[in-house]
């Protein structure tokens, strides 16, 4: 088995980071429901893990897909840790999130409502939504990433979408068009 030097790993890592860091940060932002500091932590942790197991990244059919899976695992691990007592619901979600940074092109009110809706999902439900509808993974691949059965993915996805429809519809901003 050919072995690459550390400098090869470093140059490959830098190129990968330059090309894909923003993609990973977008995914992390969704998983964290807009908590940008938490999202940045996830990305940094993920990149470090990838570097330490760079052979796995090299062997992956799609290094980016592998990195996204790793990111999801880091997210799930982090949300399990007791010291991260992040709220999954807030009393006034839209009010709490109105201070979110404004991103050019996005209506700040809509952004706040959508983030509040995502935030009101449990971490694994949010991960299902991100994997299924942001990364377009099918049920089987989503189940593989999350280490659960396809049936669990289907039920979590259905519940999450129903919840999002309700919350977003109630906010009178968006009617969600989704296929389960």
């Amino acid at each position, binding site marked *: 088995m050919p072995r690459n030097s550390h400098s090869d790993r470093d140059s490959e*890592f830098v190129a990968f980071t330059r090309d894909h860091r923003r993609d990973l940060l977008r995914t992390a932002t969704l998983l964290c429901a807009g908590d940008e500091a938490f999202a940045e932590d996830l990305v940094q942790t993920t990149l470090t893990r990838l570097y330490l197991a760079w052979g796995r990244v090299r062997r992956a059919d799609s290094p980016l897909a592998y990195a996204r899976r790793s990111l999801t695992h880091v997210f799930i691990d982090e949300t399990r840790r007791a010291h991260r007592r992040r709220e999954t619901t807030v009393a006034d979600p839209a009010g709490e999130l109105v201070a979110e940074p404004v991103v050019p092109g996005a209506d700040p009110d809509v952004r706040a409502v959508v983030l509040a809706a995502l935030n009101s999902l449990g971490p694994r439900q949010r991960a299902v939504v991100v994997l299924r509808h942001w990364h377009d993974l099918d049920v089987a691949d989503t189940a593989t990433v999350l280490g659960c059965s396809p049936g669990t993915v289907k039920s979590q996805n259905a519940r999450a979408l129903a919840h999002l429809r309700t919350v977003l519809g109630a906010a*009178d901003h968006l009617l969600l068009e989704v296929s389960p």
Partner: protein
Amino acid sequence: MSPTPHAKHDIKDVLGLVAETDRPVPTPADDLARAQGAARARTQRRFRAGLAGLAVVSVLGVGAATVLDDADQQTTQVSPGGVELVAQQFDAAPYTFDLTPRGWSVQGQRPQAVTIAPDDGSTSDEPDDFVGKLVIMFDANPPSGDAVELDGRTFWVSDSGDGYTTMATRTRGDEPAGVVRIQYPRDAGWDEDSMLAFLASVHVGDSARLGVG
């Protein structure tokens, strides 16, 4: 995109509304420096673990069963932690290995599992105590973890979170049906490439039995 009230939107578009961030992005050099620091810290941990193992040897001595080391073997792979795999077949019936880890010995062999321990005496003499050892297991539990393709076979790699990594692969078509897996301590000098090669070299004999657990 500025949604109007009651307009219908695809969920992907909705997620796209909130995925972007204007947060400054660190440079790749920042990420590399952080990762290199983590790699150095890991190496130092392994070095300290190695010194601790040597200290135990000097006091207790070593009593191993089947010594797998041999001077005329061809080294095929050296992990960053220093463990060598040599192209030398050995048997631990009902399992056969095409590669041999230099400096490690078979300590226990059963139809369901093989235990391989380092010769440095840093682990217990009890074959069913897996701390610090390589354990090759055969069972019917579904494999889980990150899928890795190697030489036409799929391997699943998972970190247990307690300092050990487990790799699993399905047996070959001419072997008893099941999953063969290996568990190894990450601080014992092994790396993933070496361990994948070692697991790929395992052949499961007909008298192997599925373990429970």
